[in-house]
């Protein structure tokens, strides 16, 4: 007997993600899913973010890694609510992990929740977490050919942060090729070039975040 199903494979995850998103929006919280390769600078960017926005927005952070609480420990030093999810081998976060984590996170009065996903340019692109927006952190040391090799994560991001621009003089990185390829995959994306080491461009990232929060809260 043949039975039609015609259901998205990730339907269950999508339903939980919608539930998470509704719950966060009802509490007035805007949520960003921050993705990127291991070592691209996601946690360093978050350190600049919590320091730079402390007088403007109340933040909470969820950290995702296979093992250790190293990243959550770094953020804890800034005095914002943070929780570490360890997947123990899983290569991405999913909506059910976020739903569980929210139960242990102090969210009263929070404006912006940033979820730092597991370092990975492939799998996080597939799994919604209940976020309002996604941003991908990409470092110039990864090479300008990566967007074409890993298009889905760039296609599904509202912003791409191009980190480590302080190292440009020491590499043969082609910034024009990178921006052309990213724009061809996703014409609407905001590309923000910066350096977490020197602080150059961090203001542009903070401005973009604040504008996103303002827009979403309306």
């Amino acid at each position, binding site marked *: 007997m043949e039975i039609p199903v015609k259901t998205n494979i990730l339907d269950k995850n999508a339903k939980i993600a919608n539930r998470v998103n509704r719950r966060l929006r009802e509490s007035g919280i805007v949520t960003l899913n921050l993705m990127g390769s291991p070592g691209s600078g996601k946690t360093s960017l978050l350190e600049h973010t919590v320091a730079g926005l402390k007088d403007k927005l109340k933040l909470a952070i969820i950290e995702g890694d296979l093992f250790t609480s190293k990243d959550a420990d770094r953020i804890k030093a800034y005095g914002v609510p943070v929780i570490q999810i360890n997947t123990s081998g899983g290569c991405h976060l999913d909506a059910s992990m976020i739903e569980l984590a929210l139960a242990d996170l102090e969210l009263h009065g929070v404006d912006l929740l940033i979820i730092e996903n597991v370092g990975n340019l492939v799998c996080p692109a597939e799994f919604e977490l209940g976020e309002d927006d996604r941003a991908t952190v990409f470092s110039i040391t990864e090479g300008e050919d990566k967007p074409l090799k890993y298009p889905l994560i760039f296609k599904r991001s509202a912003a791409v942060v191009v980190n480590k621009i302080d190292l440009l003089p020491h590499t043969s990185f082609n910034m024009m090729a990178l921006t052309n*390829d990213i724009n061809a995959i996703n014409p609407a994306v905001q590309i923000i070039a910066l350096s977490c080491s020197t602080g150059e461009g961090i203001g542009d990232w903070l401005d973009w975040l604040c504008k996103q929060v303002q827009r979403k809260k309306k």
Partner: protein
Amino acid sequence: MHEMAIAASVLDLVLETAAANQANRVIKIQLLIGEMAGVSQEALRFCFDNITEGTPAAGAVLCIDIAPVLGHCCECGSEFPIPEPRVICPTCSSLVVDVLSGQELRVEQIEVED
């Protein structure tokens, strides 16, 4: 590897559907996977074979149709296949293109025995 999570989601959906129709065994599963969905067929089959052992879907044939990546240009209205990640209209070179297909991840139907 995320194909394991996808295989697990396929199995959940398939077993729920079988149970809802009082079927004891699943013999065939038809999937539709988009070319741009970022899923390796080989990895998915490997994971699926592993996790269905001991379940009513053990030994089920996994059939995978691949949906091509098709675009529609919002500027000139052309529809065209998209052979690479760069989405550019071949008629007018516009970047403003809607992707009509190629990102699907769906269980289309299952075949069961009572």
